[in-house]
């Protein structure tokens, strides 16, 4: 197990593995996401209360799930950076932070668009919406801090500490709707019970969520590969790779 863990730390090894997995991630991710979204937007039945306007859930929920999951993954990487000083963990944090920012923004934006016709307001300072906005600022802070420090190693450690400080926000986002009175409704998907949603609605939603996670995997590999090439540009294997035309 430890051998695998140490191998994972080698940028060259990761570069090869990522190149092999990427087409599969892209194809399966696109397939599931397109299937889920088309099914959800065009074929799923409309809601008894909200009619067609609930359909934005097929974009809102996958984006919000991913926004939080990316942060949790970044937090695990931050622990690896601080304890094992593994370069690849920092490459991951640096590569996916902007992706997390975009998905957090997307979930806030689709939430606002959904809130206007259903609740009657674009924005309200309830615990769920506010904690999600804090997540957006955390992503922004991580990116800014990383850009602000020139030295690669100090940047990696500072960013890792910031990521770990912010991870407290994740359970707050998740449980805000249970701990406090909020305008946002509680979770439809629960860990222990079956979803409080009709089957013909939650199946396309789950497809869209899985598809987006796979696509995220593809994008993370792509961005990490770019970051590895920049960092390792002086090494022999990168030079050989470039001379061979990237094959």
């Amino acid at each position, binding site marked *: 197990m430890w051998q695998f863990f140490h191998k994972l730390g080698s940028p060259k090894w990761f570069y090869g593995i990522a190149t092999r997995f990427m087409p599969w991630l892209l194809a399966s991710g696109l397939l599931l996401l397109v299937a889920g979204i088309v099914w959800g937007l065009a074929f799923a039945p409309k809601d008894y209360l909200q009619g067609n306007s609930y359909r934005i859930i097929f974009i809102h929920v996958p984006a919000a799930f991913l926004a939080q999951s990316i942060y949790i993954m970044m937090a695990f990487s931050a622990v690896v950076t601080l304890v094992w000083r593994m370069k690849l963990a920092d490459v991951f944090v640096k590569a996916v932070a902007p992706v997390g920012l975009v998905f957090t923004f997307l979930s806030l934006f689709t939430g606002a668009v959904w809130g206007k016709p259903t609740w009657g307001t674009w924005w309200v300072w309830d615990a769920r919406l506010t904690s999600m906005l804090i997540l957006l600022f955390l992503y922004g802070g991580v990116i800014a801090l990383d850009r602000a420090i020139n030295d690669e190693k100090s940047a990696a450690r500072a960013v890792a500490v910031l990521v770990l400080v912010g991870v407290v926000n994740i359970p707050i986002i998740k449980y805000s709707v249970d701990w406090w009175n909020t305008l946002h409704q509680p979770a439809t998907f629960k860990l222990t019970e079956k979803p409080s949603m*009709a089957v013909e609605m939650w199946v396309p939603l789950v497809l869209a969520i899985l598809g987006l996670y796979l696509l995220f995997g593809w994008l993370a590999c792509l961005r990490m590969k770019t970051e590895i090439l920049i960092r390792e540009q002086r090494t022999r294997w990168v030079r050989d790779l470039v001379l061979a035309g990237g094959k």
Partner: protein
Amino acid sequence: MHPIRKKRLTIVLFLVAGLAIAVGLTTYALRQNINLFYDPTEIAAGNAPVDVRIRAGGMVEAGSVVRDTETLKVEFKVTDFSASVPVEYVGILPDLFAEGQGVVAMGRLNNEGVFVADQVLAKHDENYMPPEVADALEKSSKAQNKAADVDKAAETTAY
């Protein structure tokens, strides 16, 4: 594990645990401020301040909505099934506003205990279903009620 790594891991765990406790205590102390709205029970118990802009939230009590025929004025009661608060509002209500639905109203509580709202937001729950299923559910719950009524009637007529 290498002793240095073990030490670093301990530091990291202490950092996260310490922060979690600090944030937990802070949010616990501020819980009343984080709550978006007061429930009818709190308002009825006099816990909500009078003549200060607050939010009140709960269900619109069935049969309590009275619309003015001349103006946009609406009166209704917000309930959490243990207490209810009368609300007055002048304006356009959101589409999802209906008896039995959740609402959050922003406004002031006056001295008579009436909540004068200047904004009413609709709250919906986490249940999504096709209209046919909702109809079927409603019918079956009505049928159950009817069955219960019949049982009751049978009991009372037995005497």
